[in-house]
C-alpha cells in the first residue's frame, strides 16, 4: 500500500495504481492532472508521497480546491506561509494595482488596499483596470478584478486618503507594507510615518520608474532596517517622460517579489 495526497487529502492506494486508474476511479471527468506541481498528459505510476491534483477544465473550483491547486503549483511550504499573511498596499494606481494582482495570484491571504481616486481614462495606459470601470473608485474596481482572479483572497478596502493620523489604523496588523503612491510628497509622507510608527513592519516603497529607460536600471535596494526601495530613483514622471506600463509593472514586480521574499523570511535585495 502507498499513501498519496489526492486533491490535498490523504489517500491510501494499492501499490500498482496508476494516475489514469486513479482518475477513472475518483474523478473520471478530470482533464487536468497534476503530479507534484507539474501538469502531465501521459499515464504514470504513482509513488508513495506523491501529491496528485485533478481538475475539470472550465469548472470554477471552490476555495478548498483552488487552495489545493495553488498548493500544487507552489514549492512545498511556501503556500501555507503566504496564505496566512496580511499585506497593506497604499495606492491603487500603476504600482498598487499590479502589486495587488501579483500578490492575489500568489495566494497572499489578506490584502488591505487604500486609494482615494477614481479610475480615469488616462490610467488605462498602465493600471490594471478596464474601460468599463472608468469613474468607479479604484479600490472598488480593483477588488472586483482581484475577486475575478482569486475569489478567496480576503480584501479590505479603504476609499480615502492615507495620512500620518490614520496610517496604522487602516493598515493594522500587517506583515508587510507597500508604498504605491504616485505623488512624491505622499511617498515621503507615508515612508516617514510608517518608519516612525511601525518600525517593526517592513516597508517596500518605490521611486523612479517613468519613461522607457533600460529595465535593468530598476533595482531593489535595502536602505535601512525594514525599508526597501524599488526603482531607479531618478526618472520622475514629468512632461516628456510619462509613466508607461512596462517599467511601472517592472517596478511593481520588484515590489511584489520583495513582499513575497519578506513573507518567506528572505532578504529582498
Amino acid at each position: 500500500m502507498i499513501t498519496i495526497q489526492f486533491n490535498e487529502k490523504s489517500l491510501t492506494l494499492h501499490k500498482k495504481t496508476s494516475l489514469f486508474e486513479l482518475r477513472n476511479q475518483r474523478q473520471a471527468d478530470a482533464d487536468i492532472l497534476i503530479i507534484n506541481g507539474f501538469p502531465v498528459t501521459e499515464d504514470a505510476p504513482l509513488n508513495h508521497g506523491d501529491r496528485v491534483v485533478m481538475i475539470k477544465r472550465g469548472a470554477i473550483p471552490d476555495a478548498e480546491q483552488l487552495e489545493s491547486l495553488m498548493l500544487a503549483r507552489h514549492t512545498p511550504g511556501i503556500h501555507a506561509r503566504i496564505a496566512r499573511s496580511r499585506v497593506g498596499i497604499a495606492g491603487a494606481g500603476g504600482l498598487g494595482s499590479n502589486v495587488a494582482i501579483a500578490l492575489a495570484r500568489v495566494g497572499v491571504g489578506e490584502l488591505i488596499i487604500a486609494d482615494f481616486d477614481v479610475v480615469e481614462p488616462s490610467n488605462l495606459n498602465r493600471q490594471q483596470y478596464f474601460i468599463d470601470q472608468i469613474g468607479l473608485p479604484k479600490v472598488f474596481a480593483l477588488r472586483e478584478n482581484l475577486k475575478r482572479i482569486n475569489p478567496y483572497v480576503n480584501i479590505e478596502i479603504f476609499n480615502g486618503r492615507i495620512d500620518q493620523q490614520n496610517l496604522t489604523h487602516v493598515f493594522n496588523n500587517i506583515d508587510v507594507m507597500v508604498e504605491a503612491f504616485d505623488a512624491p510628497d505622499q511617498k515621503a509622507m507615508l515612508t516617514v510615518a510608517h518608519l516612525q510608527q511601525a518600525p517593526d513592519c517592513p516597508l517596500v516603497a518605490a521611486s523612479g520608474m517613468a519613461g522607457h529607460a533600460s529595465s535593468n536600471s530598476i533595482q531593489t535596494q535595502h536602505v535601512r532596517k525594514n525599508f526597501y526601495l524599488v526603482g531607479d530613483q531618478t526618472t520622475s514622471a514629468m512632461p516628456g517622460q510619462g509613466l508607461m506600463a512596462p517599467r511601472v509593472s517592472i517596478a511593481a514586480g520588484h515590489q511584489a517579489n520583495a513582499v513575497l521574499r519578506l513573507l518567506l523570511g528572505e532578504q529582498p535585495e
Partner: protein
Amino acid sequence: MNVHINGENYPCASGLTIGQLLTRLNLQQDRVVIELNQKILNAADNINTKLHEADKLEIIQFVGGG
C-alpha cells in the same frame, strides 16, 4: 565641521540646519526621508534642527510616478 551624508564626508559650517542643508543640496523638504543618527525625522518639523560634528545622515528624495 564635518557630517556624513549617505556615507560620504560633507564639510559644512558649524550650526548648519537641516533646512539649510536641504536647500544646499537642492532637495525639497516635502519629498525627502531623512535619517539622522539612525532616527527617522519628519523634515518639516526639523527645518531648524542644527547639525553637529560627525552627525550621520541618510537622505532619500522621492521622485514622482507610480
